[in-house]
């Protein structure tokens, strides 16, 4: 007990983080341990190399994008609170708590989760997934096994399916609509982050 409270003191802004993200102190501790584990040179922050050292990400088709998502615009370091903030998006939604009506929407709500995913598609941050961006994602996911024409036709069809305002791109609302049947709360949640 004593050790955990002292470790909690190591974590900067622990209480604030807990309130903002909804993590419990035990979770925060685990995340801090992981943060320290990733941070090989003990710099106190994470750089892209640290992320790339993680095993599975190299094989992940969108590994690069995920890493970039941690680094908010311009910066090339991630401190602990940003780390936690990003991971808070993957907390399982606590439906009971949301009913009380928090003023600020917690990162784990459905919209915020979708927004996070949307931003991984929309690299230029113009609020729309253009055909080219979609093609990039498809190319990354499907690799070399498909022809360019197939990719084009899939992208074409995907856009046609949801593009209501005919701007040849997928806006965030259209994105949300296309995923309305999917249980995002379950899909984008990692169990141990409860």
């Amino acid at each position, binding site marked *: 007990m004593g050790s955990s409270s002292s470790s909690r003191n190591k974590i900067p802004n622990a209480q604030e983080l807990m309130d903002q993200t909804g993590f419990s102190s035990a979770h925060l501790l685990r995340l801090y341990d992981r943060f320290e584990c990733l941070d090989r040179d003990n710099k106190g922050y994470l750089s892209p190399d640290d992320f790339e050292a993680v095993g599975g990400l190299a094989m*992940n088709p969108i590994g690069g994008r*995920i890493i970039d998502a941690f680094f908010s615009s311009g910066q090339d370091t991630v401190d602990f609170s940003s780390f936690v903030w990003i991971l808070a998006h993957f907390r399982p939604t606590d439906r009971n708590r949301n009913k009380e009506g928090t003023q600020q929407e917690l990162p784990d709500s459905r919209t915020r989760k979708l927004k996070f995913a949307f931003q991984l598609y929309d690299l230029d941050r113009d609020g729309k997934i253009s055909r080219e961006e979609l093609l990039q994602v498809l190319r990354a996911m499907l690799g070399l096994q*498909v022809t360019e024409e197939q990719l084009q036709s*899939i992208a074409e069809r995907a856009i046609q399916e949801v593009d209501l305002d005919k701007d040849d791109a997928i806006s965030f609302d259209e994105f949300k609509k296309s995923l309305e049947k999917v249980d995002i709360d379950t899909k984008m949640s990692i169990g141990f982050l409860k």
Partner: protein
Amino acid sequence: MAPLRRSSTLRLTGLLCLSFLVFFSRGFASHDVVSEKSSGTIQEDSHSQANSTAHKKTFPVLSFNYEHVRTPFEISLWILLALFMKLGFHIIPTVSHIVPESCLLIFVGLLVGGIIKATGEQPPVLDSNLFFLYLLPPIILDAGYFLPMRSFTENIGTILMFAVVGTLWNVFFIGGMMYAVCQIDAAELAHVDLLSCLLFGSIISAVDPVSVLAVFEEIHINELLHILVFGESLLNDAVTVVLYHLFKEFAHEQTVTVTGAILGVISFFVVSLGGVMVGVIYGIVGAFTSRFTSYSRVIEPLFVFLYSYMAYLSAEIFHLSGIMSLIACGVIMRPYVEANISHKSYTTVKYFLKMWSSVSDTLIFIFLGVSTVAGPHTWNWTFVIFTVIFCLVSRVLGVIGLTAFINKFRIVKLTKKDQFIIAYGGLRGAIAFSLGFLLDNGEIKNLFLTAIITVIFFTVFVQGMTIRPLVELLAVKKKKESKESINEEIHTQFLDHLLTGIEDICGHYGHHHWKDKLNRFNKTYVKRWLIAGERSTEPQLISFYNKMELKQAMMMVESGSAAKLPTIVSTVSIRNVQTKGAPKPSRAISKSREEEIRRLLRANLQKTRQRLRSYSRYELLNDALEDNISEARFRKQREMERRMSHYLTVPANRQETPPVRKHDFKMQCINQYNTFLFHTGYHKVYTYDDSESPRGRASPSCADDVSELKETPEKPDQSSTPRANRDAELKPKEQDDQGDQLKVSRCLSDPGPNPEDDEDSTFLP
């Protein structure tokens, strides 16, 4: 008025048929005696005739020999009865809304059994052999083959908890409580000992997949609950088998030993895991076999059925869990087999499975009813009533207790409503009856059987009938009818990758991590061996996309036939859509050449249109309108064709459409579709060539054009006829697509095309 009268006459006819069938079968049964006598006399006659050569034997022009065909004949009659009943219930709409089909079928069985008994004969009983070997496998295979794997694997922990721990709890609770009841002197049940009670408990506590399927299918509940209850009913088979055999052995020997108990536990693992392994082995062999079946497509479905059935039977040889083996076989086999077999075979498999399971299901319930009448019964009020009560109580307690435990580990918790439905959906059915039937004969057996039947009736009738209004009342989430969407698929896969990445970053080996590992393993090692040809390297997204396009193409074909045109049912073989050699060079056409070709073709089309204007008197009046509509339609059609052309291939060595269709079509066109025919005629230029690689032809449709232009002189017969017809289909489909079955006649008078389609201004002359 008319439909009512029709339905009442149908009902009468149905009743008449029913009674006819029953009396027919009864009549034939009694005819046995008669025919035997007559054959006896004929023999006598021939003997006497042989002796006295003076008499001549008359050649029997028409003779009667029922014994010969008795068994298949009666079986067919029963199946026919079952089918008529099924048909009848769907024709009469009012009753089938309130009462689930299974109840009606049991009721019919009771009627039939009553009739048979009234005529003095012994009605047939649901023989356990018949049930376990012939009636049960189709239902389980159907369920297992079409099991939604995603939701099943996501909830596997919960399902296993309910299946194993829940069933164990039920067995011991019911067995124990019933023993306590039997101790009451007033019940006169002192002869029922503990082991028999436990045996009874093991028979009665298993949730029955047949009943669950029958009832849940009609209420369209949301997928989570459906898979929970249904998955439980499938997986508890292992527990049931082990406990049943265990207690039967113990009851026989009247002793319980510690080693026996330990062996029981071990045997549980052996039974379940062994069953799964047998299924997996057969599944892999089946998948491997399907790799070579392209040489004989007609027998492909049979492989699927036979391998699965063999898996079931092989498991039953060793007293392993046949149900789990069957499910495992279906689940393993499915992705590989579907990649290998032709589309027609896939449809055949699907429909045969549905057909067999439907017939089995109907027969089971009817026989349940008949067996109830057959008896013999030993009715003991105390025993029966307490059984029913304890079944309900133990189910409720079990579900509540387990959910409290499971919810600690679940991301999406089970609410009280969910728990209620799960508890209420614990229906018992024919498996319990058949297991009871296998008991050694004796008074206890009859006692048990009566109780089992009562419980089954109670669950199926009371719970089955009330579950639908309860679902409405509690506003339980219903199944969402989801249209398949390429977006959903893309985004779901994207999210999978995302979650795997995040899990890696967190260092947490969760659900996604293992799924990703399994997928990778599957892709690198397994798919290569089990899927033939090119499909083995096809990513899942592409297969999904292909399937969607195919479905859409087929829908278009079918809707085209609604516009009264001869259409081809182009049930395509996806397998035929394969690359042969190197198709790429032909598509490497420079941009300038493309443009040139485009311009050429456009010019030609415009010229044609100009020519058309002077062709017939009809056109003169409405040319302006026609142009807009037809251009828009033309554009959209090209769009559709581009997509369809991937998949509507006619294999080079088969001509699916007789040439005569083309002429029929022309006849029709003279009336109304002149313009369009000419458009479609020129459309030939734009369709793509079958023998070329069909992969991905989105934007450079001119590449298609060029290759087509090159190819047409070489293969005019094969490709042109089906293509012309295909275009012809497309055109009426276009009309459907415009929304209102725009017939040309309406076009001629109605100036309103859909405004959104008029994009292609370049085509205006």
